[in-house]
């Protein structure tokens, strides 16, 4: 399932053999719709990645991976940390921002994860997370082709709903029904996060 493999599947359904032969769409439009398809499909608990970050003594904040969508589990040196909110930490310790010692919890704050307490020794932070497999870097060849099929139907639905000469409501409706079928199957097997 790469950008190129999905494109190869899409082009015949858009009456073209190559990108240059596309009559009513540009490659950048297909690319944008593919990114939207990736975002829609990544709401399912399908794409999981593991990131490891070195933890340094005295530093509680660590950046989350670029393709991060939601945390599944965060552990420090194979010890699972429990998620908490800032309100809970404030209730637990009025000096929580200065507390240091054994790390037990983590707080997600935008694009960073803050571990509590501030570590006093080095270690490795393992972040298991639901990812958004961007097609920007060509996608990932790791995932099966059947997931690429789901992407393709989402894109055809969008391409055929584009106002103008390319608009074909019957084709768009059929493509969206197929995309809905793939989504339903993925949701039943892997769930949502």
């Amino acid at each position, binding site marked *: 399932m790469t950008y190129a493999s999905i494109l190869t599947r899409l082009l015949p*359904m858009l009456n073209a053999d190559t990108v240059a032969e596309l009559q009513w769409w540009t490659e950048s439009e297909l690319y944008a719709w593919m990114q939207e398809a990736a975002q829609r499909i990544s709401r399912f608990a399908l794409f999981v990645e593991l990131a490891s970050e070195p933890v340094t003594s005295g530093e509680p904040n660590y950046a989350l991976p670029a393709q991060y969508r939601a945390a599944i589990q965060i552990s420090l040196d194979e010890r699972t940390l429990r998620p908490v909110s800032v309100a809970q930490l404030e209730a637990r310790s009025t000096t929580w921002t200065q507390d240091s010692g054994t790390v037990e919890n983590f707080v997600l704050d935008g694009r960073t994860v803050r571990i509590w307490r501030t570590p006093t020794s080095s270690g490795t932070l393992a972040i*298991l997370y639901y990812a958004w497999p961007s097609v920007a870097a060509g996608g990932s060849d790791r995932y*099966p082709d059947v*997931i690429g099929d789901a992407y393709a139907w989402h894109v055809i639905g969008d391409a055929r709903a584009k106002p103008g000469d390319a608009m074909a409501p*019957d084709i768009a*409706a*059929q493509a969206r029904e197929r995309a809905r079928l793939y989504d339903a199957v993925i949701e039943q097997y*892997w769930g949502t996060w």
Partner: protein
Amino acid sequence: MNLAELRDKTRSRLDDLSPAGSSYTTAQIDGALNEGLRLFALLTLCIERTVTIPMQIDTTRYQMLSLLRDWLLPLRARCHVVAGATEGALWDQPLWDSTLFNELFPDAAVTMTPVRPARLRDLTALNPQWRQDRSATIKRYGCVGIDELFVHPAPSATGTSLQLTYAAAAAALSLDTDTPETPDEDHQALVHFAVSTLPFNYGGRELQQGTEDLLRFLAIAEHRAEQVRTRSRTAGYDREPFELQAFDRSILAALMKGKKEKQEKAA
């Protein structure tokens, strides 16, 4: 039916025979048949394989798509522990009392125990440091996402394997003599899928007529999924196929009905 026969049937249904390939290329038809095969395998989980994966010491996570290219979902796991496995005669290191190369030493003790499914949160709730647990026998397994498999506890010694039964993706059809891995009686479903998919570049009447074929494809898949579900329950598998009967097909039916109404009006 092999690929060549499926292709001919599809061409015949699409009236693409005089001359053959005037509307659709061989690559387009093969692509549609393969997509149908992939979807059929996903909907029904009818392709099963059983493999034995040697577990690594102190390792709790495995990326299944790196180990098995056709991995979809786990169905059942068994822990296979061989004590004394290193006593087996290897190809270039025969032992005097081993009858064949690569056979286990006759005195090796083999045990096979069921491995129960679990969720990450269950293991964490039981013990936040579960990844540090070690044992000769794996007791639980689970999957996060499509390919992240975890086991608990991690094996403490060599000789532990996971006998895994899994639902597999179908192998692609590329040669004319290739036969789909799905049951023979379901091969017609692939023709229905291709007939419903290929007219997407034309739209119009052909596409609407194809909707009926898509519904037939889904009906065959539903029937197969029911059989697989019954068998899965009997075998005590951890997963069952997609519940197609719960999928709302009313919009597809409406698209098909729209076609019939137009035909009636025209008549």
